[in-house]
């Protein structure tokens, strides 16, 4: 290959950025943050309308804004950022040139055009069909076409990532296996290919249906659509778990406890996470019991097992690193002495705990075939996925962005004090937001509903007072979280525009090969009772007890309902 390029070694992190890859990572990350900012503005409309005392937007605007909020946050913000992470995990971590940069720019262009086209369709007002766009309810053709273009772009991005791995292997920029973070990103990319192809399989027919060319069965649509809808959240899980390992490494110098455990856990994601599409069909007609039980449980919860492993090994690796630094008193000195003032570390730790306790446990509740009856389509569902996608993915990506501002964008962060507080404000208000939303959902309040008072309806249902209280708290917590989001956007965009320029570091025409990690020491001289990470193990036990109790409380609740068979 005659590709001439340069490699910049960042003096602050030691990371090596290839010129084209660096530009692509920046472009994708910037587009991601722009969509996050726009989706955040839309969140104001959603939150202030569902807060019963305010009930701000009129019904048609509310449903339009809610449709756009879902798409801009769940799809456009997150996938743009994930493409940036894929390029980072391949080109930067493996110190190699990015494969086919021109094609990568084409992918970026398609994603930009697709995302804008989709939003234009929504804001023209005739495509308020929610993100799920269940047929036979129809949006404008350009709504679907926008998603298709975006998905094609993202798919090309995944193949650029695969190509970059091949380049690194062939040009021998590293020896042995790829780093764990790259391995995790690889699982995310594989899941992404499956997800985007499933999406094509159903969004293309829906687009043709909007052009009145063909007809799509509503139940088939739901079944296949969720292979896109749920699986796209599995890309997020694989990606943000990879970023957790990355941040543990760069913030604390932590190394994985066991490469074998962490990597096998990622492989379990590839094998089983996809089955979770069934979670959305548990209350549907025409789906058999055995199919539901096998799929909804990811074949005996093997993907849940994978997440429980990552949930232990990431903080466990942090604990081991801290103990090696001498923080060995009691169970939790390592945690008390962690760098809580570093927003990258704090964001990730708040994300891990919230993702496990709030997102993970409730996800298993909803995905249990019978328990789904008391949760399906209530506001419990958005309560759950804000815990997984916002506390899990978005907060992690925010934390990583704080790290990338000096390293990738070569700018000094403006308002570092404000940045220190951002993960706490955003993270904890989202914790509370999710909790009260799930509280309202437990009382039955519907999701995607403009007026819980059913004003003017002779058959109006009167929700209990507690439901109104919960929805008011959803409003308050939502406003606090949006404030946290505004601070994030202000710091990020502000640093890029006005932050002091930092020294870029030396550029050279050739890459420096990646060194190997130091070998694992066989004998461990830290920890207690033969446990290298006793504190993490204690936290895991607390998690397990919470999980078990909440699980059986829900069965108890279910057992008091009408008999159904």
């Amino acid at each position, binding site marked *: 290959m005659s590709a001439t390029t340069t490699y910049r070694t960042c003096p602050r992190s030691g990371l090596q950025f290839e010129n084209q890859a660096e530009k692509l990572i920046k472009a994708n990350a910037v587009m991601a943050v722009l969509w996050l900012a726009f989706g955040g503005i839309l969140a104001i409309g959603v939150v202030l309308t569902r807060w019963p005392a305010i009930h701000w937007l009129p019904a048609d605007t509310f449903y339009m804004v809610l449709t756009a909020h879902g798409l801009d946050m769940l799809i456009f913000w997150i996938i743009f950022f994930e493409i940036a992470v894929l390029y980072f995990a391949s080109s930067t971590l493996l110190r190699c040139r990015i494969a086919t940069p021109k094609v990568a720019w084409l992918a970026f262009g398609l994603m930009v055009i697709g995302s804008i086209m989709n939003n234009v369709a929504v804001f023209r007002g005739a495509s308020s069909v929610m993100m799920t766009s269940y047929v036979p309810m129809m949006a404008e053709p350009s709504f679907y076409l926008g998603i298709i273009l975006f998905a094609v772009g993202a798919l090309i991005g995944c193949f650029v990532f695969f190509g970059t791995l091949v380049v690194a292997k062939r040009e021998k920029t590293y020896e042995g296996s790829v780093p764990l973070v790259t391995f995790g990103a690889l699982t995310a990319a594989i899941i992404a290919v499956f997800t985007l192809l499933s999406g094509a399989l159903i969004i293309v027919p829906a687009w043709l249906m909007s052009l009145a060319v063909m007809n799509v069965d509503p139940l088939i649509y739901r079944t296949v659509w969720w292979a896109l809808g749920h699986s796209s959240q599995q890309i997020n899980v694989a990606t943000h778990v990879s970023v957790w390992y990355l941040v543990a490494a760069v913030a604390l110098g932590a190394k994985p406890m*066991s490469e074998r455990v962490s990597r096998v856990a990622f492989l379990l994601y590839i094998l089983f996470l996809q089955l979770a599409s069934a979670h959305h*069909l548990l209350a549907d007609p025409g789906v058999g019991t055995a199919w539901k039980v096998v799929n909804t449980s990811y074949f*005996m919860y093997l993907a849940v097992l994978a997440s429980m492993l990552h949930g232990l090994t990431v903080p466990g690796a942090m604990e081991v690193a801290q103990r090696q630094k001498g923080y060995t008193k009691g169970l939790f000195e390592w945690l008390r002495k962690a760098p809580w003032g570093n927003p990258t570390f704090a964001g990730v730790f708040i994300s891990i705990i919230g993702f496990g306790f709030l997102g993970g446990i409730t996800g*298993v509740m909803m995905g249990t075939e019978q328990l789904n009856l008391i949760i399906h389509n*209530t506001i419990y569902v958005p309560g759950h996925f804000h815990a997984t996608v916002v506390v899990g993915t978005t907060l992690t990506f925010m934390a990583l962005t704080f790290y990338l501002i000096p390293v990738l964008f070569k700018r000094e962060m403006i308002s570092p004090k404000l940045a220190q507080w951002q993960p706490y404000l955003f993270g904890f208000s989202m914790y509370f937001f999710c909790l009260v939303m799930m509280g309202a959902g437990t009382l039955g309040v519907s999701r995607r509903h403009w007026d819980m008072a059913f004003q003017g309806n002779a058959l109006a249902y009167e929700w209990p007072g507690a439901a109104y209280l919960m929805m008011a708290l959803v409003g308050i917590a939502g406003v606090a979280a949006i404030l946290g989001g505004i601070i994030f956007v202000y710091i990020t965009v502000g640093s890029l525009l006005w932050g002091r320029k930092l020294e870029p570091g030396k550029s050279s025409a050739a890459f420096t090969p*990646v060194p190997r990690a130091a070998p694992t020491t066989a004998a461990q001289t830290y920890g207690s009772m033969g446990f290298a990470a006793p504190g993490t193990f204690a936290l895991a036990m607390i998690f397990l007890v919470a*999980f078990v109790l909440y699980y059986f409380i829900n069965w108890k609740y279910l057992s008091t309902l009408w008999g159904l068979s």
Partner: protein
Amino acid sequence: MSAILPPAERLWYKHPIDRVEGTWITIALVWCLILFFMMVGWHIWGKQNLSTETYRTTPEQFMTKAEAVAAKYTVRTETEQNIPVVAPPPGSDVYMLGRLWNFWPILELQKDKTYRLHLTAMDYNHGFSLQPANINIQLVPGFEHVVTVTPNQAGTYSVVCNEFCGIGHHQMVGRIYVK
């Protein structure tokens, strides 16, 4: 910094497992199996399992059957729209449909008696959310879902649509009485 570096050992799958991890894997796996068999067990011993009995239908077919039952067992009408209140005998087939933007008809059932409740959506997807019991079932157009229900408490129940179905979605609410 080794999560971002290639592992020292050439074969990562021979990397040793720590005792913390080994213990946790065992505990987590046992819990996962309990989660799985709980679902299976509830089908054997539990009383709340959603039926899978489903037929393909059309709005006309379903309406014909629903109207026949309504004609036979209507006991009164309610609201300005004169929605019939249908009270079929225990054990019989009862019909309820969701459409833009109401449920039809109103049902009157008896406590602790069992009915075969036929559900469908006439146009778009709708949601059958029985409140305050909080039982939630998806209604999909083209499919007739037959759910066997046994109300266990007397009272006035509302059926709230909880699947977004257009601009009148938040006005879509029906009723079931249990005596």
